[in-house]
């Protein structure tokens, strides 16, 4: 049995049956120790998926259907207070913006410590000791003396390390990282990703990493989920995604990675943009931008069909006209 099982998750904006969706019919599973990378353009619903699973959606966005099963329990069944109990214990999250994700007027030690005291029932002394260990674990030098620091006294990379320490404090089963390195400069990005991978491997927790950087996917992922306009376009293990992408959108994403060989050629882009919320086409949401679109694609969205054991795709014409040997390959 999978540790995390998400079934038919749908998230909408506003109330009523006709409220436009930002996430529709998303299903996937994740095992302990696995790293799932969620990729897609801006507006594809990546962050919404993270917030929906965490139960952190803010009005007027709300989960309109679907189940989230963690270790056999449906966490959507018990209402908001039961969900709250899961957060900071079974579920943790790291956000994109380390500069604003920490409370600016609370000492770093307390921001870690409150999780330990209030959620794990530690005494103030235990919490302080554990907070030092956590800061050491996320490789912050002079950890003990950093407990008294305020966030503005730390660099962006340091703050993201603190955020990781906060997220790890409760030893979660699932850690969701929403573009944790987007706001950091390149050298720091690599350090933070290495750190996340080490910690994930060592603790055996599941990691759901949201990114739009396919290089990060290649480095980190076991499994990849490609989201497009709130629906799962393709789901596969990392090797398959890069070697044999089935969905035209996945193919287009991979083709848009600039390579050194392309020299001075124009960068490859996907024409058009993700349709806005409430403006979704009735059929396949990628149809208006798809080079292989047929009439059959337009009346209804194609279901996510299993292609092979490790690959599912929501496309009526997987691989399109592109034969496997012509598929752009990575690296």
């Amino acid at each position, binding site marked *: 049995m999978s540790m995390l099982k998400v079934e038919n998750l749908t998230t909408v904006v506003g109330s009523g049956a006709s409220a436009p969706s930002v996430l529709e019919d998303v299903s996937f599973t994740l095992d302990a120790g696995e790293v799932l990378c969620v990729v897609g353009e801006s507006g594809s619903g990546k962050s919404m998926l993270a917030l929906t699973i965490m139960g952190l959606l803010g009005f007027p966005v709300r989960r309109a259907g679907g189940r989230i099963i963690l270790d056999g329990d449906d966490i959507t069944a018990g209402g908001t207070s039961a969900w709250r109990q899961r957060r900071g214990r079974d579920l943790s999250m790291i956000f994109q913006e380390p500069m604003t994700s920490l409370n600016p*007027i609370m000492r770093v030690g307390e921001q870690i410590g409150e999780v330990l005291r209030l*959620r794990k029932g530690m005494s103030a002394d235990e919490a302080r000791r554990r907070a030092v260990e956590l800061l050491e674990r996320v490789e912050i030098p002079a950890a003990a003396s950093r407990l008294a620091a305020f966030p*503005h006294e730390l660099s962006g990379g340091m703050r993201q390390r603190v955020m990781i320490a906060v997220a790890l404090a*409760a030893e979660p089963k699932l850690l969701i990282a929403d573009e944790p390195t987007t706001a950091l400069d390149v050298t720091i990005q690599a350090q933070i990703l290495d750190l996340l991978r080490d910690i994930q491997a060592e603790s055996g927790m599941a990691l759901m990493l949201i990114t739009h950087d396919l290089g990060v996917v290649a480095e980190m992922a076991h499994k990849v989920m490609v989201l497009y306009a709130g629906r799962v376009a393709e789901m596969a293990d990392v090797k398959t995604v890069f070697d044999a992408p089935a969905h035209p959108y996945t193919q287009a994403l991979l083709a848009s990675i600039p390579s050194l060989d392309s020299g001075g050629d124009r960068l490859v882009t996907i024409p058009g943009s993700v349709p806005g919320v409430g403006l979704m086409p009735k059929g396949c949401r990628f149809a208006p931008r798809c080079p292989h679109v047929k009439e059959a694609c337009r009346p209804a969205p194609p279901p996510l069909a299993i292609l092979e054991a490790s690959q599912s795709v929501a496309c009526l014409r997987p691989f399109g006209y592109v034969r496997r040997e012509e598929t752009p390959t990575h690296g």
Partner: protein
Amino acid sequence: MRDYLLRRLVSVIPVLFLVSLMSFAVIWIIPGDPTAAFLDASSTPEDVARLREMLGLDKPPLVQMAEWYGRVLTGDLGQSILLRIPVLSAILERLPLTLLLATLALILAVGLGVAAGTFAATRRGTWADQSVMSLALLGLSVPDFWLGLLLIVVFSVQLGWLPSGGYVPLLDDPLGWAKSMVLPTITLAVVQVGFIARMTRSAMLDVISQDFMRTADSKGLSGLYIILRHGLPNAMMPILTVTGIIAGALLGSAVVVEQVFALPGVGRLIIGGILSRDYPIIQGGLLFLTVIYLLINLVVDLLYATIDPRVRLE
């Protein structure tokens, strides 16, 4: 932190200098001959000259100013013309009541206002939010002298629960003292409750939408804890600013409220001084109230630095 404190203290000095200059200038700003109010048909030119000499008006303005500063620095605010006692002792005698009244009103206003504003912000857009904010607007719009009279009509005249005015010293009769303070405190606080509630609501809404609040939520902390521990301290800066302003406004409103409730405070002393053109009282009272106002704002600035570590760097 010590440097910050020092910088703030030094910056108060020029303001104090200006404020005392303005208190001094009151005698020139108020139209009419300062001596006219005390003289009648029977006054001889010698009487006028004596009064002018007593007020120091016979000397050149610059000398008057220098003497004024000299006296203020040594704590001598002159002699009240009417009461025939030193201004300083007249003020010090009445100051405790005014400060007590203002403090009680401030505690009530901040306590109620912050609670109401926070409550409204966490229920944004609901009927609860709208009712609280409508009440706040109502409180903000009611003139204090009118509210005072209304409260007297209802609670003193009709219900007979509370005295309509007058002051009972705390040591003589604690219960009577409490009763005598209830209506003035409420009258003084109502406007400010509305003000603080609206300010708190907007500050809280601002904070609630920030990333670190979502981080706190992602830790699984309780909603109330998040609001009180993460939200409110971050919303405190604008609330504190308003509180400093309000403390000043309360001292001003106390003048009116003391009059309505016949309380022997500094406000009433100053009104009496104005009505009878008792210049030394007006000057001294004005100076005293502004100095208190400055001190309050100094305290507010120090509280900023205590709450937000980033302030100390600026």
